């Protein structure tokens, strides 16, 4: 075969037939589509975590109560707090950036900046 077999691209290929969009704004639908994919992957990860917990319990490495009653020590609490903050900052990046933009109402787009560079 001349072209390499790209299983990742083939798995996500579009089905023949124009796709219907249901919301007034196709942008909203695109975001929903991505969010649902993420939701699916989160569920998969949660199941994997549960599998690990169950195996650890079955093999007597931890007891279920060890997990439910786990009390992080001070250093662990601090680390987990940092992780949560960074996690929230990651997923809400657009909110942060739109807020920062309020303070800079006259910023040029790169395209506008580029046009100005043409004349220079």
């Amino acid at each position, binding site marked *: 075969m001349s072209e390499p077999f790209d299983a990742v691209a083939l798995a996500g*290929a*579009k*089905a023949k037939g124009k796709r*219907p969009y*249901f919301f007034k704004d196709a942008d909203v*639908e695109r975001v929903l589509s991505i969010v*649902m994919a993420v939701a699916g992957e989160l*569920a998969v990860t949660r*199941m*994997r975590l549960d599998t690990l917990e169950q195996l650890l319990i079955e093999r007597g490495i931890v007891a279920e109560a060890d997990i439910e009653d786990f009390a992080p020590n001070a250093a662990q609490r601090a680390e987990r707090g940092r992780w949560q903050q960074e996690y929230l900052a990651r997923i809400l990046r657009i909110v942060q950036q739109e807020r920062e933009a309020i303070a800079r109402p006259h910023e040029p787009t790169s395209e506008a900046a580029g046009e100005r560079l043409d004349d220079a």
Partner: protein
Amino acid sequence: MPEADHDGLPDYRAVGRHAVFPNADHDQTERFNFLARLNRHLASVVLPGVADAYRQRVEPAFEHAQGRKPAHRREARQALAAEPLYQTWSALRRNTMEMRQQAGLSLVLGQRDQLIGETRRLIDEGRLRLDPQVRIPHYLSAVDHHCMPGSYYTERTADDVTAAANYDAGMFVTTGGMLGRYTDGGGRGMVEYMRRRHPNWRPRRILDLGCGLGHNVLPIAEAFADAEVVAVDVAAPMLRYGAARAASLGVDNVVFAQADAADLAEFDAASFDWIQSTMFLHETSCRALRRIMSETRRMIAPGGFVIHIEQPQYDADMPIFEQVMRDWDAFNNNEPFWTKLHDVDLDQYMIDAGFERHELFHGGVTAVVDRELFPDAADDNAEDYGRKAAWHITGAHV
């Protein structure tokens, strides 16, 4: 207060295995579990809200503007298209189909060499008859059915079976397990129907039209083990996989043959005692349907049965909202002939093909599943409309 009912879905790990069933690792399994539960949630939790919105918002607004209720499902569909809850449900449902396809394809494409190798190893030469001259009919090639990239027939590599393996692996997701361990609830339901009504009947030759990977014909072949069964389809990947799957499950009286159900000249007149199609006609066309009906009339032997099972036809007794919901897949899940098939007078098609009106009969079939693990359509209250595992028979006993 009692706890709310569990959704009743079995885990994907309960799905029946055979030698060419794709292997799913932990995360691939859980991806299917998630999608099956999402489908179930959409049907049992979100969809009733769409019904409420139709009754309380959409229909009253239509009536206010037009001075009457919607008279046809086309009008109702247009009115619903502006309803936010319908939009949300539809967008989620479409998306779930696309996610299911990607999950299934990524699963099978990664193990295509093993699947193809195992298929080659299992196929008994006499049980598979491929014919490269068979053309893919326009009704299949216009769009990819149920958003399945490449449809049933695309061959991504030599002796490909990935389209079939993907279909097989993901049926559990789309139907929420309603078709049972081996996705064969329809075929098993059909066997039960025939045995109950004709306990002493022994067909010698059986023909299954549009067999796909043979999931519905295998229970029929097993129930009538002395019969010679021919299963036809146009898609080579489905037939190869079907033949290997049958061999793996120990069913040895089925020949999988590549042929167009609208042109079966290779089979003699009056040569089958039972001609069956299971959820096949809705993936054809009016022209093909006429040819299929004529061919079945020609091939059926005296005393034989021709049976088609499909979702119920739209008629005046079916509420408009239900018709719109049942029609959703036609427009949004690449089932282009669905709406037409459920509108036509199938009896008339059969009469036009030469059947006598007194030969025709109708009935109902629900999926027969292993009730230990799988939900039973007969006592299922969640209405997923066109996808419910309960079908209508249009048949002829000549």
